[in-house]
């Protein structure tokens, strides 16, 4: 917990100070990431580059129910390795549980597919769920035929993926929606 404070302070310094001085003062890994983002979009028009430097990887859901881009840099909240570890284990765990669920519930067109780090759950005519990782924001994105798109952040306190706008828990949301759609309870925890 103590090690995070200096990083947060450095990030706030970066946001205030002119770009030329701050990259050197940042930790090399953070500096690399900023450079990498600019390098990745070489063909993008100037206004886009200006947008990139004027606000950091702007995740859309704010801690309080606001409706604009957030000012929080999520990279400082969760490291990339930690994020991958958590997200991968959540998604792979879900994949196994959903496959078991598929064996129990006899649904026409049921299919669970995991490829390129995207989990697709087809429920025949009832709809399709798509779940993927959104690494820059440290989020898991879900697209549901019932609740539409949602973006889950890792909540350290709850040790769960939570959608800040609705306070929904990823696993609980899936459990309740799947039960609603397939008329069979499922445990994904």
């Amino acid at each position, binding site marked *: 917990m103590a090690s995070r404070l200096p990083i947060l302070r450095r990030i706030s310094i970066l946001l205030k100070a002119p770009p030329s001085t701050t990259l050197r003062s940042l930790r090399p890994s953070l500096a690399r990431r900023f450079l990498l983002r600019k390098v990745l979009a070489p063909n993008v028009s100037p206004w886009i580059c200006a*947008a990139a430097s004027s606000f950091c990887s702007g995740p859309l859901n704010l801690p309080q129910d606001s409706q*604009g881009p957030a000012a929080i840099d999520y990279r400082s909240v969760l490291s990339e390795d930690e994020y991958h570890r958590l997200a991968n284990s959540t998604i792979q765990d879900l994949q196994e549980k959903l496959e078991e669920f598929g064996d129990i519930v006899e649904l026409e067109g049921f299919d669970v597919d995991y490829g390129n780090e995207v989990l697709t759950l087809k429920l025949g005519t009832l709809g399709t769920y798509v779940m993927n990782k959104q690494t820059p924001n440290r989020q898991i994105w879900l697209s549901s035929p019932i609740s539409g798109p949602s973006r889950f952040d890792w909540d350290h306190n709850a040790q769960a993926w939570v959608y800040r706008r609705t306070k929904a828990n990823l696993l609980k949301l899936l459990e309740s929606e799947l039960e609603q759609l397939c008329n069979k309870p499922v445990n994904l925890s």
Partner: protein
Amino acid sequence: MLRLVANRLLGTASGVVLKRPLQVLPRFYHENVIDHYNNPRNVGSFDKNDPNVGTGLVGAPACGDVMKLQIKIDEESGKIVDACFKTFGCGSAIASSSVATEWVKGKSMDEVLTIKNTEIAKHLSLPPVKLHCSMLAEDAIKAAVKDAEAKRAKMKPSPIEKAADVL
């Protein structure tokens, strides 16, 4: 590279898509998306320093989608008289923001806050993986309205000042 290939496929396939019912070819973009992609409405930008212009900038290049949506407010009525957008992203993102600019014109700021991403997604028949684009468009509308309202609040003289002017 992928984009070029996709464009060519779309170009050659669009004729085919229009003749057959769309359920048969679920992999192609819906014709509304293609229409908005080829003939985007209201592309451009307003002067963001104009006190009657609200700007909503959402998304991030790292995520693959950035949308800038601007609305011009009529001072007297508080209604949105014009809107424009610029989007960096996939065809669905471009179409979603284009639809958003069409739908906000002529409405009041309170009314446009009720526009839901589900309506945009339904209008464009977005597949599950692209529903996030419609949510981004909804967020862009909200951000633009928020900015416009903040500017209007700053511009409004306080009642005391108004009385002083009259005297």
